């Protein structure tokens, strides 16, 4: 009993730390920018009904971007945690399954045929459609005799990614200069989403799926031991695998459709969280979500300030920052001999 109390305290401690990290990243994101609004003023503007251009900058430009960053970062790391747990493979990340490739092909086709002129919402929609097609394909190819083959899922996913990137090359070769630009922009990924509805959608979906994954916390813990042992523990493995596959695919589909491909968050954040809070999914899910959100908000803020007024693709920052941190921690652990 003493131990449960101690563990609960540890979990609460981590949640508080991560919540503080999220708030810190949010404060950073809200107060830094090329408009040069002083730090103290930002919060006055935020909480007081002051009107004018500075309020507009904070509420209409920085805030939606912050919220989207949090949603996408959270969604990607959540998907990463679930996939790594389900596949029992620490190298699996949200983009391994080829869902992002499908979304990218969808968006590229949209740009190639100029469908986006009909309405801006067709872009994320076609991305999501592409993602859904890949999900169905993956599911159809790997569902044999009511058993979802994880190994097969991984292999077909990697292959679909290859095919998708070749298709994108083909589309790039076929398209005109302006379209080329659009496709590359999209593939690089950006959190600068002008449509408030999409931001809400992404935020709503990611929070919703976080709640949904908590229905599977004990199943995920058992699955860490392998499918057979999980069955021995009374976990309905096939149903769980199917539902988790669906949840993660939708998470990935939504986030890729809204903000393009932002690499590394879904790989690095789950790793760090496992090292910090442990492998129990009861805390790991929420911790990864919060940490992913904070991490992406932080990276995005860096991306738009390092070479201001120009902007770096946020993927550049997540890759450099996340990757080097990761290598550093790995080296340190190896040095200690584990």
């Amino acid at each position: 009993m003493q131990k449960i109390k101690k563990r609960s305290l540890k979990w609460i401690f981590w949640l508080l730390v991560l919540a503080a990290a999220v708030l810190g990243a949010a404060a950073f994101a809200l107060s830094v920018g090329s408009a040069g609004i002083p730090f103290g003023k930002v919060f006055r503007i935020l909480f007081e009904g002051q009107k004018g251009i500075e309020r507009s900058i904070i509420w209409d430009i920085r805030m939606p971007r912050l919220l989207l960053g949090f949603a996408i970062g959270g969604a990607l790391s959540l998907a990463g945690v679930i996939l790594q747990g389900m596949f029992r493979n620490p190298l699996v990340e949200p983009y391994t399954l080829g869902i992002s490739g499908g979304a990218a092909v969808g968006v590229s086709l949209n740009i190639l045929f100029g469908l986006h002129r009909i309405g801006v919402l067709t872009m994320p929609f076609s991305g999501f459609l592409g993602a859904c097609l890949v999900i169905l394909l993956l599911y159809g190819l790997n569902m044999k005799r009511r058993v979802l083959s994880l190994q097969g899922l991984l292999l077909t996913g990697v292959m679909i990614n290859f095919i998708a990137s070749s298709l994108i090359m083909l589309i790039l070769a076929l398209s005109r200069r302006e379209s080329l630009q659009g496709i590359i922009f999209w593939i690089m990924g950006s959190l600068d989403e002008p449509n408030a509805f999409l931001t809400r959608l992404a935020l709503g979906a990611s929070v919703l799926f976080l709640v949904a994954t908590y229905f599977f916390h004990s199943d995920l813990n058992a699955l860490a031991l392998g499918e057979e042992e999980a069955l021995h523990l009374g976990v309905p493995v096939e149903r769980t695998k199917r539902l988790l596959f669906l949840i993660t695919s939708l998470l990935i589909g939504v986030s890729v459709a809204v903000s393009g491909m932002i690499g590394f968050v879904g790989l690095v954040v789950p790793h760090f969280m496992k090292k910090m809070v442990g492998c129990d999914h009861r805390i790991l899910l929420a911790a990864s979500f919060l940490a992913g959100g904070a991490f992406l908000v932080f990276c995005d803020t860096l991306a738009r300030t390092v070479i201001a007024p120009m902007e770096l693709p946020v993927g550049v920052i997540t890759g450099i920052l996340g990757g080097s941190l990761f290598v550093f921690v790995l080296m340190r652990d190896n040095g200690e001999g584990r």
Partner: protein
Amino acid sequence: MRQSLAVKIPFFCFVMVLQVFCLPLKAEEGGQTPLPQKGALSQRIVSLSPVLTEELFLLGVGDSVVGRTRYCTKPAETDKIEVVGNLTEINVEKIVSLRPDLVLVIPLTDPRAKQKLRSLGIRVEEFPEAADFRGICDSFLRLAGMVHKEKAAADLIEKAKREVSRIRQETGSRQPPAVFIEVGADPLVTMVKGSYFHDLIEFSGGVNIAAEAVHQLYSREKVLAKDPDIIIIVSMGFDGEEEKRIWQGYPGLKAVRQGKIILVDSDLFCAPTPVSFVHALQGVEKILHAEN
């Protein structure tokens, strides 16, 4: 027991979605600048195109430009203007903080940024890249309308047209040289009919060998087959000298034998305002009819 999931999940969903959609994502009323009426005079302009920036200065309203791209470097006065991005990526926050009443964009500008600016109630006008001389003039007139300088624009265009027809008449009587114009290496890129590069050559009494090609991508083979009198290399982001050496490896070419492989600075070609068009035309005329 498990069935209760079926009840609880949708309920949860409902509550969560409700909460998210109640978040205030927009500054409440008053946060936005009012949308100016069409035809209203623009006082604070952000120009995201080097050409448009230059044209605004030509029209005498350079001092109302409050934001520019890194590449808007002509005329020299532009260096006092704030930079808000490059051609493709722009900083929305920076633009908004400059409180513009008109933002001039091009098709290359990040579509998300354009949309964001529009959603914030800022007037955004897109200028497609002018294809040929006529397009340059039309776009110039359209821009002039936005800053109420139609008269000045008409005068400048009139002057340019007079000069163009003078050069056309002058060169019309001479033997037209066949010209291949190279604007990209690896793969070879040229300019086809409907581009101002093409107009420059035709107006100055040359024949563009790629005029009828469907695509800007051109093959070295076809150049050899058409055997132009002159090869003009406009080095934009590639090594022009190296390209010149490659062409010289084909001594069968007329242009090589006559030493008519000419490297030109991209600045001569790449500022398609009515004024610079005439300037470029004079330059091309000199190249085409140098020793004839």
